[in-house]
């Protein structure tokens, strides 16, 4: 009888808290169903289950548990259901989602709260009453930094620090850079956008993403994971797209099978991904599946972006801001839209020659935008 356990939603995750169950005991679950919402340092993530069967023994909400801890049990449909376990002596408080959020904002521990709801459940009123009764000498929590839904960005900052620190300690990075003539792609894009409504228009970013995905088909040594002192290539190309969060913080959730999606499909996926990264609803698989990271955060800032590889990935591609520069075409100097593409890669897995091939392939793909 397999268990549904706390997934590792990123190499740096150590614990998570189930804050919502999307299924009830006794329901049938199918592989890929979102069955729980887990609060992590990256915010609330919709976690999918990849087992099939009848789910039972759901862990109570609001308890922080380590990666690998059992969250529920999945019985195959043919197994007889176990009788429900006798109530345990340990009291784990039940808490409503609204109360949980309010408690988080006020920096209150669940153990500090008294539940007046059914089964001793903690309600929003209980949290507010506790806050009201706080003695003047108790330090009241200072206002949380402006961020979505009372989400504290400090744990995310710490998580980024841990991941990036580990990356720089463990991964010997090498760096390559290439200036790419975006002229043909720009012309193609302008032509497309002239004949499409705003909602169907494309951003240069989707061309950069698609070109990178297609380049990885030719250079698969940069698409995969370094684990147990060996490189494991990934059969699928799932670039993690770097998204800056408005309150501060950074995530790079996966766009699955980017090489197989059309530009309009990628645009829809990108828009949806950015929305969910910023306001909630990212799925666990989007955090665990990136096979490489692509960052285009130079959008309106830096001309070139040299990234830090996110373990266990082995490479990160960076695109800077589009700039207008003099460029030689034939024997003429003409103004052209130029973008600087960079690659940071793990020297244990690849050498400069391979990295150079990737950048060359990205360049080639962008010279034939109609084929993207």
């Amino acid at each position, binding site marked *: 009888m397999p268990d549904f356990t706390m997934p590792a939603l990123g190499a740096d995750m150590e614990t998570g808290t189930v804050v919502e169950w999307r299924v009830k005991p006794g329901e049938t679950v199918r592989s890929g169903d979102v069955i729980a919402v887990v609060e992590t340092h990256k915010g609330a993530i919709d976690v999918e289950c990849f087992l099939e069967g009848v789910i039972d023994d759901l862990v109570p909400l609001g308890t922080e548990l380590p990666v690998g801890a059992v969250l529920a049990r999945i019985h195959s449909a043919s197994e007889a259901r176990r009788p429900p376990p006798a109530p345990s002596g340990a009291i784990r408080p039940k808490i409503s989602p609204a109360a949980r959020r309010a408690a988080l904002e006020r920096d209150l521990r669940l153990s500090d709260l008294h539940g007046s709801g059914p089964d001793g459940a903690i309600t929003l009123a209980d949290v507010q009453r506790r806050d009201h009764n706080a003695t003047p000498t108790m330090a009241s929590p200072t206002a949380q930094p*402006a*961020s*979505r839904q009372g989400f504290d960005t400090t744990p995310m900052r710490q998580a980024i620090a841990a991941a990036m620190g580990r990356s720089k300690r463990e991964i010997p990075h090498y760096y390559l850079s290439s200036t790419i003539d975006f002229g043909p792609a720009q012309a193609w894009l*302008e032509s497309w*956008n*002239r004949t499409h*409504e*705003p*909602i169907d*228009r494309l*951003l*240069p*970013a989707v061309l950069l993403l698609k070109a990178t995905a297609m380049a990885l088909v030719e250079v698969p040594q940069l698409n995969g994971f370094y684990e147990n002192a060996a490189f494991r290539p990934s059969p699928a190309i799932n670039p993690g797209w770097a998204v*800056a969060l*408005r*309150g501060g913080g950074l995530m790079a959730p996966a766009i699955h099978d980017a090489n197989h999606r059309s530009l309009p499909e990628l645009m829809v996926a*990108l*828009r949806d991904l*950015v929305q969910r990264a910023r306001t909630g609803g990212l799925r666990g698989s989007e955090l665990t599946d990136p096979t490489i990271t692509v960052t285009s955060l130079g*959008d*309106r800032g830096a001309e070139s972006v040299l990234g830090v590889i996110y373990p266990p990935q082995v490479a990160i591609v960076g695109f800077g801001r589009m700039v207008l520069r003099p460029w030689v075409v034939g024997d003429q100097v003409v103004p052209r839209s130029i973008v600087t593409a960079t690659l940071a890669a793990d020297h244990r897995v690849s050498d400069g020659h391979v990295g150079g091939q990737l950048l060359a392939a990205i360049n080639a793909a962008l010279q034939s935008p109609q084929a993207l």
Partner: protein
Amino acid sequence: MNASEIRTLVAKVLSGIAPEADLSSVGDAEDLREALDLDSMDFLNFVVGLSEGSGLAIPEADYPRLFTMNGLLGYMDR
């Protein structure tokens, strides 16, 4: 659309893109993208919202006229 309607629509669309932003603190001649830290995706979503909210077609070539509130007031007044 009159000036008041334009301001209302702009505020409404931006509230969905930069919900924590205080539009009243942004000057009419200031570049909204800088003031509200809008990237290219945010700006395109802004254009989508303006176009759908006003019924106006907004070709890409006209985007620079939408960077400031003054520009918006002039452009959308039709």
